[in-house]
Structure formats: structure tokens, C-alpha cells
């Protein structure tokens, strides 16, 4: 099922098993870039679950190929046409559906956000990234990386990568946000979607719009564990601009023959600026879905 194109599948597959164990046969999910929606639709097809994916109307335009993919996989994609019409509202609508139909429905959240225990569930399911990356780099290089770096939207690929290196104090952990969606870099404490974390909020606690060329990073909140790692100093968080991400997208394609998703292109941009020799980047997904967005710039 890796053809779904992003790390989102690790989590979708694990939660589908949980849903089966809970005896629930209907799944709701939110999606921004559509990657999590595709992963969810895929596992639902495989397990025979009914699947409803909420997606902001604006994102449905930006990520049209993924909307079609979800349809092919048998999922119903419901447009969310109020507020920012992006991931924030899609998440709210998925949660409203879930709390209404909780007897039959599992909410398959796509990142390490949401009410407890979701941030922990998603971290555990994505921790496979860090575990395998650690083994692989030890096998390939005979040592740990000096830096492990990943993009941060809700933060699931990053927390999964970091999980493998948290206890290795010598490994620098760096998360890269979109500058227009820098919940950690520019946020303050707030409560959204059932968790208290660092958020883009105004002086009154009203949640602000996030802006990023990459739909998967366009979320004003972030997993609470990242706020904790920032405050404890164990991880650092920096921002990359749309232009920096676009430049790395093109550069990786041209130099390595790998077309990355726009989300990890943010991590690639900042990896290029690091002084260290051995840097581990989490390439959380591939870029087919972003071609039209990139080529139109």
C-alpha cells in the first residue's frame, strides 16, 4: 500500500486495526493535502469499512488528483465550505461527525494532534520511521546522524522520526514549519481540536489562518508533544518559505531523480543550510500530487 505516497499510511493502517478491534466499521477522517485521505480510503477499501473524508473546498481544488483517487477507492469526500475551507475546518467537521456517530464510527485522525490519546497513538504508529531510520543509518554509515530533520505540519512524520533518536542526546532534532503556518515558531498556548499546544491565535485566543503553498502544512496547530520538545529544548523548530520549499523540490528532482512532496521540501531546504556532515532528512512523501501547484508557479 506504499503507493499511497506518504508516511500517512503507517498511521492509517494501525488505526484501521484499532477500529476493527473496537468493532467499528465506519471511518471518518480529515485531510489537507489529501495524502491522509488517500491512505485512509486505501485501508478502508482493504478492510471493507465505510469511509467518509472531510476536506476543505479550497484544498479539493489544490489537490484535485487526490480527490479522484479517494473516489476510486470508494470513499465519500465531503467538501467543507466554511471558515478557512482548509484542514482546520475539515478537522472540526470530522470531529463533529465522530462525536455524533461515535457508536459506529472511528475517527482516523491524520496527525499527532486532537484529543488524548490520539497524539500518543499516532506517535507510536509513526515511530516506525525513527526505528527503521536509526537501524538503516547505523548499517549504512556505522554511526548515528548528527542531525535528524523533518517537516512539521501537525507533526506526525517529525515525531515519528524523532522517536527513534530522543534518547540519543548527541543527535540534534530539527523540525521545519512553513513560515506562514509556524505554530511553534510564532504561536502561543491555546486549545484547538481537543489539545492544548502551541497555536497560531490572536490576543483573544481566536485561531488564525495558516498560509502555506503546501496543503499538508497549512494547519494553525501542532501536536502537543512538539510544543513540549520545543520548551524542553530537546528539539529546535525553524521555518522555511514557500520559495525555499519550491527551490528544494526542483533541486532534489534534478539532482537525485526523486520528486519529493512539497511538505518535506521544507525540511530539505533547511537541511541544505546545516553545517553538519551527516544529516538524516525524513522524506515523508512523493510529489506527484504537487506537480500542478509547482509548475503553475
Amino acid at each position, binding site marked *: 500500500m506504499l503507493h499511497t505516497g506518504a508516511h500517512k499510511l503507517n498511521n492509517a493502517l494501525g488505526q484501521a486495526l484499532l477500529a476493527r478491534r473496537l468493532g467499528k466499521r465506519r471511518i471518518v477522517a480529515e485531510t489537507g493535502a489529501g495524502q491522509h485521505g488517500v491512505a485512509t480510503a486505501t485501508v478502508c477499501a482493504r478492510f471493507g469499512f465505510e469511509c467518509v473524508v472531510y476536506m476543505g473546498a479550497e484544498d479539493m481544488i489544490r489537490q484535485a488528483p487526490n480527490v479522484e483517487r479517494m473516489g476510486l477507492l470508494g470513499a465519500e469526500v465531503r467538501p467543507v465550505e466554511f471558515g478557512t475551507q482548509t484542514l*482546520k475546518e475539515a478537522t472540526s467537521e470530522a470531529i463533529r461527525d465522530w462525536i455524533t456517530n461515535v457508536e459506529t464510527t472511528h475517527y482516523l485522525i491524520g496527525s499527532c494532534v486532537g484529543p488524548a490519546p490520539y497524539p500518543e497513538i499516532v506517535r507510536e504508529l509513526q515511530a516506525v520511521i525513527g526505528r527503521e531510520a536509526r537501524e538503516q543509518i547505523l548499517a549504512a554509515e556505522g554511526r548515528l546522524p548528527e542531525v535528524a530533520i523533518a517537516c512539521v505540519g501537525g507533526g506526525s512524520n517529525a515525531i515519528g522520526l524523532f522517536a527513534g533518536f530522543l534518547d540519543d542526546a548527541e543527535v540534534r532534532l530539527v523540525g521545519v514549519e512553513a513560515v506562514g503556518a509556524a505554530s511553534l515558531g510564532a504561536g*502561543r498556548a*491555546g*486549545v484547538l*481540536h481537543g489539545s492544548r499546544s502551541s497555536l497560531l*491565535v490572536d490576543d483573544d*485566543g481566536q*485561531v488564525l489562518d495558516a498560509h502555506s503553498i503546501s496543503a499538508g502544512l497549512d494547519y494553525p496547530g501542532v501536536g502537543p508533544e512538539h510544543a513540549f520538545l520545543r520548551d524542553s529544548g530537546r528539539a529546535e523548530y525553524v521555518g522555511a518559505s514557500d520559495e525555499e520549499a519550491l527551490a528544494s523540490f526542483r533541486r532534489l528532482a534534478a539532482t537525485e531523480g526523486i520528486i519529493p512532496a512539497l511538505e518535506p521540501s521544507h525540511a530539505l531546504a533547511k537541511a541544505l543550510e546545516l553545517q553538519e556532515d551527516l544529516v538524516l532528512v525524513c522524506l515523508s512523501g512523493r510529489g506527484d500530487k504537487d506537480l500542478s501547484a509547482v509548475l503553475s508557479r
Partner: protein
Amino acid sequence: MKTLAIYLMCGAATPKLAEAAVEGGADIVELGFPFSDPLADGPVIRRAGERALDEGMRTAACLECLAATRRRVEVPLIPMTYASLLEAYGYDRFATAAAEAGATSLIVADLPVDAEPGLRRVQLVAPTSTDERIALAAERTDGWLYLVTVTGTTGARGDLSPALRTLVERARDLTGLPLYAGFGISTPEQAAAAAAIADGVVVGSRAVEVAADGPAALREYVASLREAVDSAPLVSS
């Protein structure tokens, strides 16, 4: 007597509307302080919140609205909002400012019972709450327990939720506090049926809709709820 609570969204017209609701027979008025992402609310209250925010109803303006309402009515006034507003304002500071503006208590829809134990507020329980959770909510709540009749958000429903009876029975075994039922109650018939089981009812979405037609319409609507609630038998369960 059974209690009738009416929910209104804060706005320029709200003090007059609250007065009309009280004239119609409301015992308690809940005042919505709008939040950008109201997870517990269905479309009617969500849209009312969006309009209120567009009109500038931020925390300071809502506190003024509360104070202006307090000058017109004597019934308990309860701000209902979301934790992000308190997080930004400061929990203690918010509680103090609300009390100074005339609030009787608070409802914070997305603050779990075990969070911020120092903040006195009315606790909510739902059909999915465990007995342990209901007992804790009853122990910590401020005067009465808010029974969410449905699994789901605020908003009118076709029928009174069948889950309410069981929830009332479970809560009665755990506490002697008054139990008021809300979410999904919009017609006088539903209000009467809910009041026959619980100690009071809370009406939100439909009141917000009627309030758009002005104080006279709201007074009449609340009076119809009052009559329905008073027709309910006094001894419940």
C-alpha cells in the same frame, strides 16, 4: 418548578434579547462568547458565532455585553465558551472579570472535568460519559449538572433523544444536584418531554434562530417553552 435556560450569542442586540427571554419566562440565560472553532456546535450556533466575531465580539466586547445584560435582568447569567479564550485571557483573570461583569458561573465546552480544577464552572456530561466521570463532574460542578442529551453537537433534532432517560437515571444514582438537559431541544413538546425527566432544560440553537427576528418573537417563543416546561409533572423519574 422546572428550570428553563436560554442560550443567546453575544452581540449588540443581546442585552435586550436577554430581557425579552426573561420576560418570556427564562430562569437562566447562557451567553455565548464566540470562538473561531466551536467544535461542540452545530451549524446554527457556529454561524451565529461567525457573525458575532465579524461584528467584533471579542472577549472584552463580550464582557461588556454581559455587564449590559446584567443591568437589565436579575436571573443567573452564564457565559458559555471554549478554552482557547480563557487560555489567552488567563483562567483566573477570566473568571474574575466575568464575575465582576455579573456572571453567575461559566461553561467551557472543551475543558475536560480534570483540567483546570480551580476554575468553578458548570460541568457537562454526555450519554458516553462513564459513571466515574459523571461522579467526578458532579463533585466539581458549580450548582447543577449539564446533561448533553445526544452524542453530537448543538442543533435542533426531530425527536427528543432516547438517551436522555438513561443518562438522567445514571446521574440521579450518583448525585442529588439538579440535572438540566440540553442539546437538541427546540420545540415546546421536546421541552416538556425533557422537563418530565430532568430538572430543567436548556434551549440554544432554536432560540438563537428566533432571536434573529427580534425581542418580541423571542419573548413569545420562550413563553411557549415556559408553558410546556411548567406542564411537565413536578416529581420526576
